[in-house]
């Protein structure tokens, strides 16, 4: 056993003074392992029937975190924090579920349903409203940071006219890949809204003709929504069951790649040190160059984040 490990990872006579893993065949095996892992992750992430509870959704994003971090940004900007509104939460959940059901990733559905329809159907009478969308983020901080880095999304978060917020995090298979959609809806209630009974609020209520049209926070006529992720509510409405492990395909691939890189870097460094110490003369690639190159790749792997906003 020890001989095999030493043969694989340490320069010695048996491997012609070059660790076997650094031979061409060894490097090709490493490449094959990488390709195999990628295929496996790809298969498992798109096939719930094989391993339904291992791969897929990132569930570390929670509604409370999104609201807290959104309000933190507003507070830092000298704005009043937003209040969670149950109707906006319902609207956000409905929007998330609609995107999953109709398989689209946009503010306006392929059938022309705008975000305002979901807000109105939830019974929220608004004077101004907005929407932010995000998907594939593994944590709340990077998602909110991405929104803040985008001028139009930032404008929604930092809009002083908004008073309420509703967030939904919906897990589903969207366009062929498991993902966590985050819908963030903002709004301010119509000031002169007539009193409406509780029963009426639970049904779809079209806005009266005098209701002002919603404010468009983004460019052109793209509505602005701020998503409030309530994990309990949103997961209850999701199309797929919550997974047991919160590992995304990206996280798994990053772990595999970083493990391979660490092994290679350690073996390269060990090989370099031992050959220098033993004054071994051989024809081989430059270990320092390999290390520099792989460290560069490792940094990119380490710093890569998933997620997109809309």
């Amino acid at each position, binding site marked *: 056993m020890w001989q095999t490990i030493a043969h694989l990872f340490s320069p010695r006579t048996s491997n012609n003074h070059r660790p076997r893993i650094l031979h061409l065949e060894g*490097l090709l095996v490493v490449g094959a392992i990488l*390709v195999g892992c*990628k295929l496996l992750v790809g298969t498992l992430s798109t096939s719930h029937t094989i391993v339904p509870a291992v791969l897929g959704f990132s569930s570390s994003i929670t509604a409370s975190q999104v609201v807290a971090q959104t309000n933190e940004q507003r507070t830092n900007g000298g704005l009043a924090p937003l209040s969670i509104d149950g109707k906006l939460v319902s609207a956000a959940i409905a929007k998330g579920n609609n995107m999953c059901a109709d398989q689209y990733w946009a503010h306006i559905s392929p059938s022309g349903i705008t975000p305002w329809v979901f807000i109105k159907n939830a019974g929220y009478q608004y004077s101004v409203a907005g929407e932010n969308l995000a998907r594939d983020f593994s944590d709340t901080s990077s998602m909110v940071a991405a929104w803040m880095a985008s001028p139009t999304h930032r404008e929604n978060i930092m809009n002083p006219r908004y008073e309420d917020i509703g967030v939904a995090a919906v897990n589903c298979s969207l366009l062929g890949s498991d993902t966590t959609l985050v819908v963030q809806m903002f709004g301010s209630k119509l000031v002169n809204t007539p009193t409406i009974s509780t029963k009426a609020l639970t049904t779809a209520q079209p806005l009266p003709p005098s209701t002002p049209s919603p404010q468009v926070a983004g460019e052109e006529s793209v509505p602005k929504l701020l998503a409030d992720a309530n994990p309990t509510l949103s997961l209850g409405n999701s199309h797929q069951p919550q997974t047991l492990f919160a590992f995304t395909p990206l996280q798994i691939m990053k772990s595999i790649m970083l493990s391979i890189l660490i092994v290679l870097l350690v073996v390269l460094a060990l090989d370099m040190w031992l050959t220098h110490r033993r004054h071994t003369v051989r024809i081989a690639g430059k270990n*320092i*160059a*390999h290390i*520099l190159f792989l460290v560069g*790749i490792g940094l*990119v*792997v380490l710093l890569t984040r998933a997620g997109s906003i809309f």
Partner: protein
Amino acid sequence: MVHQELTQHPYHYTALIIIEALLLSLYTTTTDSLLKTIFAILVGSAYAIWGISVHAGSIRTPRLVLEYAIVGLLGTLMLSFLISVT
């Protein structure tokens, strides 16, 4: 030994660091999948070419050339796989 190697080929290593840093920066900053793939291929290819060129004045066996090519290929594979899961 590291210092000795770096001082022996200062321009080669400077070129390697600059080229790789440039290509990896382009890979990281671009958002288009096709462009990312192209930069990933360029990263690996550039390393293979660098490896071949750095041994131009010494013994350069086919296995040596292949070693740089395969290490470059590993880098390209990793960068490409990152694109498909983000």
